[in-house]
């Protein structure tokens, strides 16, 4: 399956954070094409193992979370409308007039209503609408709604993947299905080159609710090196230039206190050697990604963070470039396979 097709298939999967149970099987099926073994743990992390060919293989962990942000039903009112709150970081400003799917007894189409402007009193005119004041309309009366939906059912955004110019794709869940696509492409690439180490490619859960899956991955697999793949902010007119990255200019390699200085340096060298387009993402805090978990897990695991620039993160129209996904996949695969060669080549430059 080609990358574009793979990304579209991945984005179609519904896996609201904390409810990855039904999606685990699909993800498992996708990974099993390129792995020697695939298993699913109690929390629905999908763990693929691609064995290395070398003597004394080390264990490399590469993860990309497959959960997505969404909503959860908190009540059904007397008119059949649904009250809700967020699962993961949802900005209320993104919700007005959106199409959603309510995962009740069956999947139901719904719409998030919005108050027409003439009903907004003047004192509220310059305040954003709060989530508590919004409702999901599934078009049923209260009795029918209560048969089909219960408190605690999750809701995902309904948005098809759009193909834009320049090899760019727009849709919900580019955070983080674009990284899962990169994970799969990485496995494909590893299938073409010899690598010494065992690679645990894990599609993790509940990153959006506290990096939960990462804790388990680190603990159970105890790797020698951990690579987290996530998205970073794509550039936008009023976003700070040191926190956002242009699309199409390659994978963003994170540099900073919690990332392994040695591995980061070697990784950049490799990117240059292999002519893989890359950018540098300076992270002064803990990055807010799974890398934060790995770097201090167990006795500490040397960690790399590779990111795919995504515009409009956490909206329904996240935009990524397929070129950046491919660059990420190639860099991850080649770093895993060739990093020892770099050590042998010696460091001519010590500073990144």
């Amino acid at each position: 399956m080609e990358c574009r097709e793979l990304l579209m298939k991945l984005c179609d999967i519904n896996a609201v954070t904390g409810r990855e149970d039904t999606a685990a099987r699909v993800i498992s099926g996708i990974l099993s094409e390129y792995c020697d073994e695939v298993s699913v743990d109690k929390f629905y992390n999908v763990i693929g193992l691609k064995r290395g060919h070398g003597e004394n293989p080390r264990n490399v962990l590469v993860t990309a979370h497959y959960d997505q942000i969404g909503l959860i039903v908190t009540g059904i009112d007397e008119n059949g409308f649904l009250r809700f709150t967020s699962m993961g970081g949802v900005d209320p400003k993104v919700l007005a007039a959106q199409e959603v799917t309510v995962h009740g007894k069956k999947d139901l189409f719904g719409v998030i209503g919005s108050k027409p402007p003439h009903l907004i009193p003047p004192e509220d005119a310059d305040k954003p609408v709060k989530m508590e004041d919004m409702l999901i309309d599934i078009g049923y009366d209260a009795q029918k709604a209560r048969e089909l939906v219960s408190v605690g059912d999750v809701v995902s955004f309904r948005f098809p993947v759009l193909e834009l110019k320049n090899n760019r794709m727009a849709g919900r869940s580019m955070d983080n299905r674009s990284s899962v696509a990169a994970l799969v492409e990485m496995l494909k690439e590893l299938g073409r080159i010899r690598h010494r180490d065992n690679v645990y490619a894990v599609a993790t859960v509940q990153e959006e609710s506290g990096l939960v899956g990462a804790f388990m991955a680190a603990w159970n697999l105890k790797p020698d090196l951990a690579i987290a793949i996530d998205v970073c902010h794509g550039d936008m007119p009023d976003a700070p230039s040191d926190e956002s990255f242009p699309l199409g200019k390659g994978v963003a390699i994170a540099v900073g206190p919690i990332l392994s200085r040695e591995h980061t340096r070697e990784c950049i060298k490799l990117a240059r050697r292999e002519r893989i387009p890359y950018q540098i993402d300076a992270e002064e805090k803990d990055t807010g990604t799974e890398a934060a978990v790995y770097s201090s897990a167990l006795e500490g695991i040397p960690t790399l963070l590779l990111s795919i620039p995504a515009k409009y993160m956490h909206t329904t129209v996240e935009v990524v470039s397929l070129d950046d996904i491919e660059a990420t996949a190639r860099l991850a695969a080649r770093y895993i396979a060739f990093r020892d060669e770099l050590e042998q080549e010696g460091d001519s430059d010590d500073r990144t």
Partner: protein
Amino acid sequence: MFDTISRLVNVFGPSGRENRVAEAITQMIRDKVDEVRTDAMGNLIAVKKGSGRKIMLAAHMDEIGLIVTTIDEKGFLRFGTVGGVVPLVALGQRVVFENDLTGVVWYEENMENMKDAKPDKMYIDIGARSREHAKELVETGDMAVFEGRPVERNGLVVSKALDDRIGCAVLVELARKCPETSNEIYYVFTTQEEVGLRGARTAAYAIRPDMAIAVDVTGTGDTPKSVARAVSLGEGPAIKVKDNSVIAHPAIREKLVECARENGIPYQLEVVDKGGTDAGSIHITAGGIPSGGVSIPTRFIHSTSETVDLKDAENAVRLLEAFVRL
């Protein structure tokens, strides 16, 4: 049930000082379990041995309170909060120290706006005449808890510290029933939940249970202009779907619902944005422990008049009894 609750809420036990609560609970269940021990954090762990799965049931012993930070020259005490104390709710309340000394919480009366009521503009009056006199009665670092004697009316119990002595009472009652099962049950009375879900983390790490359920309180949506919550007093224990700290493992949630349905136990579903429980630190411990929650609907949480319906607590006991037999 009311007696158990009464005894437990009256024991002094703010976060970090739960020893007396641990003693009281030990007295209540010592002869109903195979082993009782404590750990370095003061967690009380009672085990009913078995050959089947390891199930951890957790309820926290600590309550919110105040901690003395300075004693001023006139003998008034300045304080910090232990756990989520709402300053406005503390105003005018009586607090009691471990040595039974009573104090009153008040505010600097030149405060312009009541919304500014924060600990640094409030103080405790223990009736001391001077700093020296006060120092005979208390020390900086001493903690005090709120007063609010338990009262029952119409099947509703009003008291301070139902968060989470009601959870402890539920586990005590369950232990006393000696539920028949081959599973190994860990009744864990945790410490320092109110300041960051701390005790549960180490207890879980040591026990490594196959699954865990936190028994705590949850807010209701049945009072005037309350936050819209689906949970109400008297409609049954609330099975946790998610809170601020954890998304309950679907298998545990579904099993609890199944147990409720099969045994004709009324239940509700809990989804909250704010508020966390011990399950939050248990589920990411070690390699991950599937966790859920059974919560007792409670009004006016973190006040001196928390209110629960005894039926909900009794049904929680029945629900857990059915669950541990799986």
